[in-house]
């Protein structure tokens, strides 16, 4: 990559694969379970987290020498909450129908431990540009898993993608349903998100044996 030095591009690529916040660090699981029943909320959540983490990491990094260490967690929380409220208000004003579908989930970004984790672990000790890349990278790593899980849960659970039926109509028995296929209702329930994440972790670790912990 010409634009980024090798060290910088590592900041983006690492969280996408070998240091993924969900599958390796097992952070942010709560929101990954809650919102991945359908593909569209998963994507909007991924984009919103991308914004909040990119901007938040830069803000924290700019303030890193000014923030009193005693109240740094509170300061981080305020930065996340402010950004989330701004996202929510802007969506309400300019993408009303989308915000109606997602307003609960947007609020949930505040509780996403990946964000606080990166503020604390990275932005407080690094320069703004590197913090920005780290934020974008981690949010993308989180988003990719969200979208994969959302894809499988909506496809197998409801037989749709983005709300459009892709496997035929289960009521009139067309498409796949004509030969006896049924939607798996369990897929839309939160426990299946955990199992899908588990399968992703399994696939990832069997492809890259270095990731398997020894004990």
């Amino acid at each position, binding site marked *: 990559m010409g634009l980024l030095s090798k060290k910088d591009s590592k900041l983006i690529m690492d969280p996408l694969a070998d240091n993924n916040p969900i599958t390796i660090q097992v952070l942010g699981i709560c929101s990954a379970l809650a*919102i991945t*029943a*359908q593909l569209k*909320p998963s994507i909007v959540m991924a984009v919103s987290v991308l914004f909040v983490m990119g901007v938040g990491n830069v803000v924290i990094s700019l303030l890193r*020498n*000014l*923030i*009193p*260490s*005693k*109240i740094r967690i*509170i*300061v981080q929380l*305020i930065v996340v909450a*402010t950004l989330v*409220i*701004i996202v929510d*208000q*802007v969506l*309400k*004003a*300019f993408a*009303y129908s989308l915000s*109606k579908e997602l307003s*609960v989930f947007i609020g949930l970004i505040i509780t996403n431990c990946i964000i606080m984790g990166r503020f604390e672990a990275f932005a407080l000790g690094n320069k703004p540009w590197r913090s920005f890349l780290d934020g974008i990278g981690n949010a993308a790593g989180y988003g990719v898993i969200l979208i994969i899980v959302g894809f499988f*849960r*909506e496809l197998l*659970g*409801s037989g749709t993608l983005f*709300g*459009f*039926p892709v496997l035929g109509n289960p*009521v009139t028995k067309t498409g796949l349903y004509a030969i006896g296929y049924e939607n798996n*209702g369990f897929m*839309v*329930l939160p426990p299946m998100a955990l199992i899908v994440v588990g399968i992703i972790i399994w696939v990832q670790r069997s492809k890259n044996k270095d990731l398997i912990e020894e004990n």
Partner: protein
Amino acid sequence: MAINTDKNSYTIIFAVIMVIVVGSILAGFASGLKPKIKENERFEKQQNILYAMGVNENEGPNDATFVSTDKVEAEFNKYITKQLVIQGDEVTENDEAYLIDIKKEETKAKDPDYTRRLPLFVGEIEGKEVYVIPVRGKGLWDAIWGFVAVDKSMTIQGVYYDHKGETPGLGAEIKQRYFMDDFTGESFLNGGAFEGIEVSKGNNDPTNIDKDDNEVDALAGATITGDGVAAMLRKDVRLYVPYFKSLN
């Protein structure tokens, strides 16, 4: 420029400045965007009312699309002929009836001296008169609400449901066409008396051919939301029964 960030006085000053800065940013955003948000909410209500009475831009059997926001105001004025407010026995016309907050009215109605204002929208579509009733109730997690279009005899012409936070893929399916469309043709009355519509799990009629059974087929995995829909219809539509009795 080494500032001692560990001092108590510095911590307090930092916190105060932070609160002021963040507070003004958020206040600025909120008041700057408020008119736009309010307008969106108003349009949405008009869109919902029109959708219930059959004015929409649906494409295909699974699609639920409102009339677009840029023409919703004109369409609303075209199709809605009268907006009524029913208060006790008194019926008045009021062009802003659609702005009545039925949640607030419901709270106020707990006071025995207060007679609840009930908004009702009278529209005409393809030469047929329809009455759109707003309803509001509880789902599993949060509020659910909707608009029900009926004719003079309280037979449903169309419905629109929405929710604040039902589970995606389960309770949230109440705003899907296949659920909403089942209500069309059902009657709230049974033998002349008000009965409501049951969202029924043990339904022998899953494709909803029988329109006289006061039942529609429930959604799998969304028992409480479905019961909430039935309860909401029973609770709020019942209030309008005296008015419909006076029509016939």
